[in-house]
């Protein structure tokens, strides 16, 4: 019992950090209606700044006080930059675009930290007193209480500011009804900037103070935003008190859960502590929060109508598909081995992004879980093939079936949840699957599990097949052809889907669920079908991944990798198959990053930085993505030269008269 209490108190440190980030999330949401995924990254930036200033990383060492001040300046600078360069230009965009914008900030900051400080986790010195107090016979470091008290005081102070100051009134007015606040002479830009700065200050401060308790790194710290989002969901993205309390309690229960998992009666993973319990807890809490508080976030009366990227009818499918396939066939034979590998990676990346074209592009729902489904399919494939000896293609089909069913089950349980809430809860789900399932050695494990090559009628179709390219190296073009066939088939299917009745129903649901229901569309059935199709595609990509590397490991299917892929999907053009192609070429290990590294020596981290920045630029300047811009240029050219006009009037340039 005393042990439980001890762990509960120790958990206050983590809890204070979560509470501080949750306060940042709520403050930003109240100020600008943005669910800022990069709030945890602000804590990371200031923690790194504090660490580097106190440890002589830049060649000089500051005392703790000035270093902390410097770290807060860094947090504020990040806040200003985020507000001016990202949030302000996205003011009138859809909530999903705003969320993706904050994702761009998260990816950029993560890449920045990796480039400056490297991957090694660091230990920062403590500002808080290092003494201990004795409480109920337990010796407890006092900094835990100081931190918790500090976060509570911040929450109270913020609450007082919102309650009684003119600025607080303006914020409340703007979050109730932006349009009316605008008409009343309040500047939403000013309100938003002030709140973003407040949020950055709170998150940055907690980053500095909690840094000695949690380690300073570029993955765990930014991902603390996920438990913080759970706390914010309990608070309905409004109540500071609830967000703070829930954040602290989440940290405490994670710590207690950790203690329990070390007990002899607790189930173990082959003798080791069960992985991912913390993440499972956060996911479960989010589900509870959505159930208790309802699936909707508080609506804001935004000043401008928001539109999602357009989904034009494709006019020709077969010819471009055949041309692309022919180019790929030749490339798979003549290219040197490393580029063949990069091309195969690109195609698999494209297939995963195709699953986002269906669920996000056509139906308007962001599900971060899709990459976790790919991983599930990969691991199941390994088990089917290795443990039960199921031959290809039945092993692959079985794996796809299992993962698709999981995706449909997730979709059915998330039917009430839509838009931004869905993105948040599926992010927690992806993290839970990654930590609890993929890292569990009975299912996956960080070391990875092997996947035997696909063989059909005795012919090896895998990357080690006898038929080699011109340079005689692995991977075999045969495997490339297999991947190409799957990619072309799925690409054609997704493009064709836009022309079918089902595709129209999906877009109708995306536009307006009420009107769709009144038009006779079974909105739930359409969403479940979309989840099924998207999960099927993602699972197919997962089996291809497995064959591609001959093994499956958790590292490829992390929640952060999923966020990165969504970013690439947006940059390419999330509503189009051609956008998925562009995104596939940019994804990890694909042709573009490989060529950049090989020819210009640009490392993958730079690509991540480039990806984060171009995601923001895309959202602001060109929401339809690369593919959308290409489409616009093409239709504009067609309109100018009537001789290539082929019957379908490009609506963008048509004079509409009634």
């Amino acid at each position: 019992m005393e042990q439980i209490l001890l762990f509960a108190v120790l958990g206050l440190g983590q809890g204070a950090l979560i509470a501080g980030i949750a306060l940042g999330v709520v403050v930003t949401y109240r100020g600008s209606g943005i669910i800022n995924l990069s709030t945890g990254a602000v804590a990371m930036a200031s923690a790194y700044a504090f660490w580097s200033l106190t440890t002589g990383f830049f060649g000089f060492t500051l005392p703790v006080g000035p270093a902390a001040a410097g770290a807060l300046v860094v947090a504020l600078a990040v806040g200003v930059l985020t507000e001016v360069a990202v949030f302000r230009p996205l003011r009138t965009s859809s909530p999903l675009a705003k969320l993706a914008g904050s994702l761009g900030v998260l990816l950029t900051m993560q890449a920045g930290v990796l480039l400056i400080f490297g991957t090694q986790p660091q230990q920062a010195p403590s500002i808080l007193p290092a003494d201990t107090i004795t409480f109920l016979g337990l010796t407890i470091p006092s900094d835990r209480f100081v931190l918790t008290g500090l976060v509570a005081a911040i929450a109270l102070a913020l609450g007082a500011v919102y309650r009684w100051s003119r600025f607080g009134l303006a914020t409340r007015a703007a979050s109730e009804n932006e349009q009316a606040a605008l008409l009343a002479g309040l500047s939403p830009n000013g309100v938003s900037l002030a709140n973003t700065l407040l949020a950055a200050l709170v998150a940055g401060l907690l980053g500095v103070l909690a840094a000695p308790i949690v380690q300073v790194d570029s993955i765990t710290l930014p991902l603390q935003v996920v438990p913080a989002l759970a706390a914010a969901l309990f608070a309905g993205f409004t109540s500071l008190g609830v967000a703070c309390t829930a954040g602290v309690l989440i940290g405490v229960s994670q710590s207690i859960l950790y203690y329990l998992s070390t007990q002899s009666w607790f189930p173990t993973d082959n003798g080791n502590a069960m992985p991912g319990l913390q993440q499972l807890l956060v996911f479960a809490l989010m589900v509870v929060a959505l159930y208790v508080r309802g699936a909707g976030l508080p609506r804001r009366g935004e000043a401008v109508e928001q539109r999602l990227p357009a989904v034009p009818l494709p006019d020709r499918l077969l010819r471009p598909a055949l041309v692309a396939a022919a180019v790929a066939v030749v490339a798979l034979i003549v290219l040197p081995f490393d580029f063949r590998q990069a091309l195969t990676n690109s195609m698999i990346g494209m297939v995963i992004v195709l699953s986002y074209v269906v669920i996000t592009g056509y139906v308007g729902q962001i599900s971060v879980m899709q990459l976790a489904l790919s991983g599930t399919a990969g691991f199941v494939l390994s088990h089917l093939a290795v443990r039960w000896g199921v031959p290809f293609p039945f092993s692959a089909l079985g794996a796809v079936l299992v993962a698709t069913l999981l995706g449909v089950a997730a979709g059915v349980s998330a039917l009430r949840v839509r838009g931004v809430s869905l993105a948040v809860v599926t992010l927690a789900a992806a993290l839970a699957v990654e930590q609890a399932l993929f890292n569990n050695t009975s299912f996956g494990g960080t070391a990875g599990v092997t996947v035997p090559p696909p063989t059909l009628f005795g012919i090896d179709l895998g990357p080690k097949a006898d038929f080699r390219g011109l340079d005689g190296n692995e991977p075999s073009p045969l495997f490339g052809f297999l991947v190409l066939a799957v990619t072309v088939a799925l690409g054609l299917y997704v493009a064709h889907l836009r022309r079918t009745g089902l595709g129209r129903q999906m877009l109708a649901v995306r536009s307006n669920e009420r009107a769709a229901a009144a038009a006779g569309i079974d909105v739930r059935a359409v969403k479940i079908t979309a989840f099924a199709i998207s999960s099927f595609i993602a699972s197919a990509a997962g089996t291809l991944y497995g064959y591609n590397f001959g093994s499956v490991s958790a590292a490829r299917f992390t929640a952060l990798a999923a966020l990165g892929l969504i970013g690439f999907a947006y940059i390419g053009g999330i509503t189009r198959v051609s956008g998925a192609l562009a995104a596939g070429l940019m994804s990890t290990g694909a042709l573009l990053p490989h060529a950049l590294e090989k020819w210009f020596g640009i490392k993958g981290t730079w690509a991540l930085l480039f990806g984060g920045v171009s995601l923001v630029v895309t959202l602001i300047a060109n929401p339809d993505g690369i593919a959308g811009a290409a489409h616009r240029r093409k239709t504009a050219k067609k309109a100018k030269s009537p001789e290539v006009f082929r019957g379908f009037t490009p609506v963008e340039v048509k004079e509409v008269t009634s």
Partner: protein
Amino acid sequence: MSVLSVQSVSVSYGGVHALSDVSLEVRAGQLVGLIGPNGAGKTTFVDAVTGLVPARGRVELDGRDLTGRPPHTRARRGLARTFQSSELFDDLTVSENLLVTADRPSWWTALGETLGRRTPANPAVAEALAVLGLQDLADASAHELSQGQRKLVGVARALAARPLVICLDEPAAGLDTAESAELGRRLRAVADAGTALLLIDHDMSLVMGICDHVVVLEFGRVIASGPPARVRTDPAVIAAYLGASATTGTPETP
């Protein structure tokens, strides 16, 4: 025989009774008008009938009970509606908007379409476009239409389902007088061809000019019902629209 029969429908939001015991019948080929001051519960009534808000009472379509059915089932049984704010599917073209209601692909046709089989053009789409004179807009994108055009496309979308009943929620709002009269003429023709229409509108001359029967709502209750000529002179209606003093003949003091 009524095609649409609504019996004692009530809707409450918390303690507020938005609709109390409203009953209404629409026969095939009949054009029934539903009027009332702002906030009388007209749109709530359509939402209740089409299943978009939970309601007590009974809704029958062509003798079949629709009570408790979800909105899409009611729509598929032949109950179409338009929205006050003409909620078109902005990502689709005009003809695709109509196709969504005209074609209700079964699993079988959906599978066929997936395998590349072309579904034949649905004549209901061209027909509905022609009825409202929208042929030229067939390939336009819904989000680039003017407000008046959006209203008409909304009506065409309801028509394309070839429904038994259409509930029209202020289809003439945003149209000018001439356009409104033209829309009225076309709606009359739709009704005369056998579809039952329930028309909600603020344009008195439109409602009184084309409807066979008019129902008047005030504060969620029916205060008058009958042929236009009788409703026009009903003292309760005049009071609701012009203020209580109108019945006594003394002008209201501001």
